[in-house]
């Protein structure tokens, strides 16, 4: 079975999804979802181990050779991504049950469908990550997108519906742009396999069609990953989604979109075309900088903490794109390791916030007064996540920031390095607003708030501790990221 791990990685959640839909009640469906997502996590870990030990794995769907069939190709980069997605998927699945059962305005008979949609979303994200076929990316992109629209829309607030709709329109436009891009590439090369594309593109790279394809893919993925200024769908979507969904999407969906972008820029088009011919870095750099600064500033003025975190996500995406625009091993290492670290950070933050709103009923800042005392464990996890977001040493967030600054300094870009540090201070400001209210504002009279149930706390703390652990032992997040970055810059994976 070991040889079939790449296929099983996606197929297990895929098969569990309809099974889940067939189950009559929420509990067994949740168990199925749990089992499937933890299995996926296990497989992802095994895959990463295999890739690190033996090099890239290629798996041919249906046994058809490349480029006729669809290939699954796992190298250091996507094995790493798989691990992120599957890990967050498993942890959030464990977290989700209590919230779904008690905090959603969803009738009981629909609970299995919620888990089904969750599994489908996981399937889609894993599928995007593992595939080596350009069109297959589109198909799985849509699976994950459709299910995430549905997941967002079950939020309690009616604005969740509008947010989901906005996301649907933007997301579909983005996906269609990607589709156009893939189509234009196909017409020029006659192939859809990424490796094959990479081999055949240089011959036609001078043509305008390829350039247009590049432009469409860039814009399409930029919408999906919420690159400033195409991020408008994100804050609402995250703010009104149910907290497990927000945690899951924030930690994985945009990351996978970034992965797709990296894959196309570096593997398919190649460094030379992307950054020398198209001068992509010249576009990404200012966009990411403006994105970081403006989103951080906006985050400071939010009163809805979930929305604040969503804007912070936009800023963090800016950091990742900044790393990409450096086009150096250090910069890419920063980006890729930040994919991992930010998944941990936002996962734990959104989950801690989920615990808070589970007890308090809302994620608004003023409602969190005194929560630090009544829910010490929850807020403890929030503080750890926050510190990691700021990039305090000994937390995971520090590692990626370190590489980012090193990358900027290597290029001699002083202002960029200074700006990265200065915006970390903005993160201090918005995180500290929450901490202050939670710890030092007295709770309103007569409001009794208890600590969140263990079923919520354990997953939250698992991620919070991961933030600390990966701040200490960076061989996984930074080490593999470095390998992946070298792989990307060294040409085909």
């Amino acid at each position: 079975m070991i040889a079939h791990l790449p296929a099983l990685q996606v197929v297990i959640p895929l098969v569990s999804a309809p099974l889940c839909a067939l189950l009559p009640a929420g509990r067994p469906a949740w168990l199925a979802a749990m089992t499937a997502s933890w299995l996926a996590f296990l497989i992802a870990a095994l895959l990463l181990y295999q890739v690190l030990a033996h090099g890239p794995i290629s798996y041919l769907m249906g046994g058809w050779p490349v480029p006729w069939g669809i290939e699954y190709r796992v190298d250091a980069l996507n094995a790493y991504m798989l691990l992120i997605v599957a890990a967050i998927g498993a942890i959030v699945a464990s977290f989700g049950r209590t919230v779904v059962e008690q905090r959603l305005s969803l009738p009981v008979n629909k609970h299995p469908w919620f888990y089904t949609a969750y599994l489908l979303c996981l399937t889609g994200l894993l599928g995007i990550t593992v595939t080596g076929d350009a069109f297959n990316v589109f198909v799985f992109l849509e699976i994950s997108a459709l299910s995430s629209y549905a997941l967002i829309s079950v939020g309690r607030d009616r604005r969740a519906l509008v947010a989901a709709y906005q996301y649907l329109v933007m997301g579909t436009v983005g996906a269609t742009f990607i589709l156009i891009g893939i189509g234009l590439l196909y017409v020029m090369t006659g192939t859809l396999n990424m490796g094959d594309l990479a081999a055949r593109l240089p011959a036609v790279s001078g043509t305008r069609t390829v350039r247009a394809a590049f432009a469409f893919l860039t814009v399409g993925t930029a919408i999906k990953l919420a690159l400033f200024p195409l991020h408008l769908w994100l804050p609402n979507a995250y703010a009104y989604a149910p907290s497990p969904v927000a945690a899951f999407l924030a930690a994985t969906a945009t990351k996978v979109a970034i992965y797709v972008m990296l894959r196309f820029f570096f593997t398919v088009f190649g460094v030379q075309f992307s950054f020398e011919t198209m001068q992509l870095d010249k576009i990404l750099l200012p966009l990411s900088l403006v994105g970081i600064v403006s989103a951080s500033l906006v985050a400071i003025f939010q009163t809805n903490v979930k929305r604040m975190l969503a804007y912070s996500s936009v800023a963090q995406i800016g950091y990742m794109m900044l790393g990409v625009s450096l086009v150096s091993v250090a910069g890419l290492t920063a980006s890729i390791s930040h994919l991992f670290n930010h998944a941990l950070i936002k996962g734990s933050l959104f989950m801690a916030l989920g615990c808070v709103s589970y007890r308090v009923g809302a994620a608004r800042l003023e409602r969190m007064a005194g929560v630090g005392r009544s829910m010490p464990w929850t807020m403890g996890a929030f503080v750890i996540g926050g510190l990691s977001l700021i990039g305090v040493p000994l937390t995971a967030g520090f590692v990626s920031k370190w590489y980012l600054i090193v990358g900027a300094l290597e290029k001699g870009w002083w202002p960029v390095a200074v700006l990265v540090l200065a915006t970390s201070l903005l993160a201090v400001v918005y995180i500290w607003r929450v901490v202050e209210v939670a710890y030092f504002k007295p709770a309103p009279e007569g409001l009794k708030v208890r600590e969140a149930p263990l079923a919520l706390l354990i997953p939250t703390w698992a991620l919070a501790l991961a933030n600390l652990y990966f701040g200490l032992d960076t061989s996984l997040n930074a080490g593999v990221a470095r390998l992946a970055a070298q792989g990307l810059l060294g040409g085909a994976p």
Partner: protein
Amino acid sequence: MQILGHFNYWIFIILMMCGFYMVIASDNLIKKLVGLGIFQTSVFILYISMGKITGGTAPIVIDKAVVYSNPLPHVLILTAIVVGVATTSLGLALVVRIQEAYGTIEADEILAQDRDDSL
């Protein structure tokens, strides 16, 4: 020849622009979805015309024909159409819920209501 050779593509571009404009500019949520549909269909036409070979026939093997049009885009577009209808139906479901929750399906009115909410 150059102009004629790209005629198809331009039709699709014009259609696409119409659809895209509808998506961005219209305030009515259903109209936006219709625009999205047009936008997507125009992309399908792009794909299919890529696969056409002058003088070819549909890619079903029969003895007489020698030249077949390229079947691969057809396959891709079949998938894409399905994706399109899936998106449309989900979007419509959302619109229905929005109508129930807000009593309107005009984007600006919804925005106005939300603004009132947050005050």
